[in-house]
C-alpha cells in the first residue's frame, strides 16, 4: 500500500510531464493514422482478385497491377486471390477492411449487384455502398438466335405464338437480363436452366433446342461470323460498331420500362471493375481513381493487353459510382422482376 501511495505522489509531482507525454503519444498516434489514411504513396496496396487464380479476372488484375504501382507511387501493388461464391467471398472480406486505400478488389461487378438484389444468403456487403474506383474492361452483351430460326429481329421474338425458349447456364447476369427484357417487352419466355456454360447454350440455340441466348460479343463473335447465329439485340449504351444495324435494348423500350433496362445496361456495363470498401478515405479514393485511370490509358499496358488478348475499355471511377446510383434508384422496379424469374425456375 505504501508503494502505491508513493507512486501516486510521484504521479502528482510529475503530472505535468506525464500530461505532455500523453498528449505527444496521442498526437503521434492520431497524426500517423491521418497520414496513413491520406495517401497510398509509399504504401503496399493489395488488390483482392475475387475469382479463380487462372481465370480471366485474375489475368486482368495481374496485367494491370504493375501499372497501378507505376502511376500511384505505391511501394508495391500485390494481388491476393480470394476465390469463392462467384466473387462473394473476396467482396465479403473487403467489406470489413479498413477504408484506407490499402486493400481494394477487382471482380465482375454485375455478379455482385445481382447476388445482392436476388437476396443471396451469402452476401454480407451492400454493393451500392462500395467505393467504385474504375472499370478496366467491358463488352456489350448480345441476344442471339439460331441462324435457321424464323426469328429475324426482336419484334419477331415479341410476337411469337409460343414462349421464347431461353437456354441459360444458371442464375447469372444473362438470366436476370433476359427476365427483365422479357418483362418490359411483354414477351412470354420459358427459361431452361442448367446448361454447362456458354458453349452449351450456344449449341442449344444452333440446334434449335432454344430460341436465343445472351452472351458477350467475344464469345459469340466467332459463331456469328461462322453464320451459325444471328444477333438481334444488344444490351449496351450504344450500338456495337461492328454490327451497326442491330438495335440496343434501350431503343426498343419506352416509358417507365426504360429505367429498368437502363439499370440493367448500366450494371452490365460495369463488368470488370476495381472497388474499395465503403467510406473509402477521399484522398485515397482520388489517388486510386487517378492511378487506375492513368494505368488503363498507359500505351505500354494497352499494347500488352492487345498481345494478351485481354482488351481494355476503361471508365472513370466517378462515372461508375454514378451508375450505381441509377441502379439503386431502379432497384424497386427490378427486384420484383428478378424475384419472379427466380421463383419461376424453383
Amino acid at each position, binding site marked *: 500500500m505504501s508503494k502505491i501511495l508513493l507512486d501516486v505522489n510521484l504521479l502528482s509531482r510529475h503530472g505535468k510531464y506525464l500530461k505532455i507525454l500523453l498528449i505527444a503519444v496521442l498526437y503521434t498516434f492520431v497524426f500517423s493514422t491521418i497520414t496513413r489514411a491520406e495517401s497510398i504513396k509509399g504504401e503496399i496496396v493489395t488488390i483482392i482478385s475475387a475469382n479463380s487464380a*487462372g481465370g480471366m479476372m485474375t489475368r486482368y488484375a495481374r496485367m494491370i497491377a504493375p501499372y497501378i504501382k507505376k502511376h500511384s507511387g505505391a511501394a508495391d501493388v500485390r494481388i491476393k486471390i480470394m476465390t469463392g461464391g462467384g466473387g462473394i467471398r473476396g467482396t*465479403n472480406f473487403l467489406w470489413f477492411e479498413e477504408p484506407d486505400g490499402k486493400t481494394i478488389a477487382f471482380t465482375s461487378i454485375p455478379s455482385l449487384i445481382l447476388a445482392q438484389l436476388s437476396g443471396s444468403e451469402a452476401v454480407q456487403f451492400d454493393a451500392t455502398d462500395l467505393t467504385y474506383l474504375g472499370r478496366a474492361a467491358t463488352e456489350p452483351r448480345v441476344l442471339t438466335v439460331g441462324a435457321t430460326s424464323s426469328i429475324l429481329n426482336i419484334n419477331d421474338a415479341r410476337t411469337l405464338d409460343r414462349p421464347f425458349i431461353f437456354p441459360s447456364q444458371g442464375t447469372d447476369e444473362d438470366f436476370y437480363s433476359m427476365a427483365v427484357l422479357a418483362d418490359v417487352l411483354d414477351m412470354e419466355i420459358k427459361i431452361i436452366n*442448367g446448361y*454447362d456454360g456458354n458453349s452449351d447454350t450456344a449449341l442449344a440455340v444452333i440446334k434449335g433446342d*432454344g430460341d436465343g441466348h445472351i452472351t458477350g460479343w467475344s464469345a459469340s463473335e*466467332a459463331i456469328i461470323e*461462322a453464320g451459325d447465329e444471328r444477333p438481334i439485340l444488344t444490351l449496351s449504351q450504344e450500338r456495337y460498331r461492328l454490327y451497326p444495324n442491330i438495335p440496343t435494348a434501350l431503343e426498343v423500350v419506352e416509358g417507365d420500362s426504360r429505367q429498368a433496362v437502363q439499370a440493367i445496361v448500366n450494371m452490365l456495363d460495369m463488368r470488370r471493375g476495381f472497388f474499395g470498401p465503403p467510406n473509402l478515405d477521399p484522398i485515397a479514393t482520388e489517388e486510386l481513381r487517378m492511378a487506375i485511370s492513368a494505368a488503363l490509358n498507359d500505351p505500354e499496358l494497352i499494347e500488352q493487353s492487345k498481345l494478351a488478348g485481354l482488351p481494355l475499355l476503361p471508365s472513370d471511377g466517378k462515372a461508375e459510382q454514378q451508375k450505381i446510383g441509377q441502379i439503386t434508384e431502379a432497384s424497386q422496379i427490378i427486384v420484383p422482376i428478378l424475384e419472379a424469374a427466380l421463383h419461376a*425456375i424453383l
Partner: protein
Amino acid sequence: MLEAIFAGLMALATPQAMIFMIIGVSYGLMIGILPGLGGIVAIALLLPFTYGHERAATLALLLGAHIATIWGGSVTSILFKVPGAAKSLALVFDGHPMTQQGHASRALGASATAALLGGLIGAVFLAFSIPIVRPVMLALGPSEYLMMALWGLTIIATFSEGSLLKGMIATLAGIMAAYVGMDPVSGTPRFWFGSVYLLDGISFPVAMIGLFAVAEMIKLFVKGNTLVSRVSGEEQSSVFDGVKDAFRHWWLVVRSSLLGLWVGVLPGVGASVGGIAAYAQAAQTSKTPERFGKGAVEGVIAPDATLGANEGGGLMPTLAFGIPGGESMAILLVAFLSMGIVPGPQMLTSELDLVFSMVWIIVIANIITTLIGLAISSRLARLPTLNPNIMIPFVLSVCLFGAFATRGLIEDVLVAAFFGGLGYLMDKYQYSRANFVIGMVLAEMIERNLHISLGLYGDFFILTRPITLAMLVFIIFTTALPFIRQQRHKKNKQANE
C-alpha cells in the same frame, strides 16, 4: 485433302516447332504427375509465353503439353492410387491393383500404349469424320447426354461385390457430396452451412486426392509396410507385356478410342465421364467381368485409349463452331484468337492445313509421350516399393500441395484431409470408394441433363427421342449382358455335369 495433310506436317518441320513440342510434352508430363493439376492448368500457365512465335510452334507447345498431361495423370493413378486429374480416375480401379500385384510396369506400358493408340486412332478418325462432326453434334442433345451418364452409373455393380447395399450407400454418399454448393439449375445454395467456401461445392480433384492418396497413406501408416512388396514389384512383369496387352486387346482399344473421340466432340460431356463410360463398356462386354476392379489390364487400356482420343475430339467443336469442347479447349480458344485463328466452318475448308497441323501435333505428341513413358516406366514402377518412412511424407506433401494448388484455398487442404479419413474408413468397412467418386462425377451431369430434357422435351422425352430410346435399350442390354452370360455359364456347367 492430301495436300493439306502434307502441308500440315511440313508446318511442324521447323526447329522451333520441334523444340516447342518437346518442351511442351516434358512440361505436360510433370504437370500431369502432380495431383489435382491437369491440362487446363498446363495450358493456362503457358499462355503468357505464346506470343510472337510461329503459329504451328505455338500450337505444338500448347497441345503437346495438354496431351502429355493425360499420361502423367495415369502414372500416379496406377502407382499411388492418386488420380493426376479428374479424368484419370478410372485408371485407379484396375491400375493400382495391378501395381499391388507387382504388375506396375505392365500397367504403365499398357497405359502408355493404349493412350498412344487412342490418340492415333482418334486423330485418324477425326480426319475422316470432319464432314460428319456437325450433323452428329446437332443430332445429340441433353437427353442423350443423360443416357451416357446413366450408362456410366451402371458400373457401380462391378464395385459392389459382397454387398450391393454398401455399394449403393457409397454411391448415394458421393451424390450427396456433389450436391454441396450451388444448385446448377436454380443457383440455390445446398448443404453450405453458412460457409462461402462450401458455396462453391467440394472440389472433385481435392476429394479424390483425399479419398485415394491420403487414405492410402493412412492405411500404409497403420499397416507399417511398403505399398508393394519389393519382391513382387520387381519380378512379375515388364513394360513390354503391357505394350503387348494393348495390341492384344485391339478391338477394345478401337471401341474405347471412338467413344473418347465422340465424348470430346460433344460439349457438356466431360472427359472424366468418358473415362468411366469406357471402363463400363470394357467391363460389361468382357467375358470375365468379375476380374474388373481386381487388376484387369483391360480396365487400364479402355480409359487410357478413351482419354488419348478425347483431345482430338475436343478440338472439333472448338474449330468448327468456336464452341470449346471443354475447359482446356476454352483456354485454347483464347490462344487461337490471339494468334489470329478465327474458328468456324472455314477452318475445315480454307484453313484445313492448320487443322491437319493440329492432328499431326496430336500424333507426334502422343508418340513422344509414349516413348518417354516406356523409357521411364520400369524406374517409375519401383517407386511404390519405397520405404513407408520416405513414401508417406513424400506422397502426403505432394498431395496436400496439389490440393492447395487446385484453387489456392487452404480449406481445400482440410477437405483433402477429411476425405482421407473418410476414404480410410470406407476402405476398412468395405464401402466402395470407386462408387463414391462415380456418384460424385455423374450426379451433376444427371441432374443438369434430366432437368433440361424435362424442360425442353416434356415428361415422356425418353419415348419421343428415338436416339435416347435406342441408347436406353443399349444400356439395358449391356447391363444385362454379364448376368445373361453368367446364367448361360451356369446352364452349360450343369449340362456338362
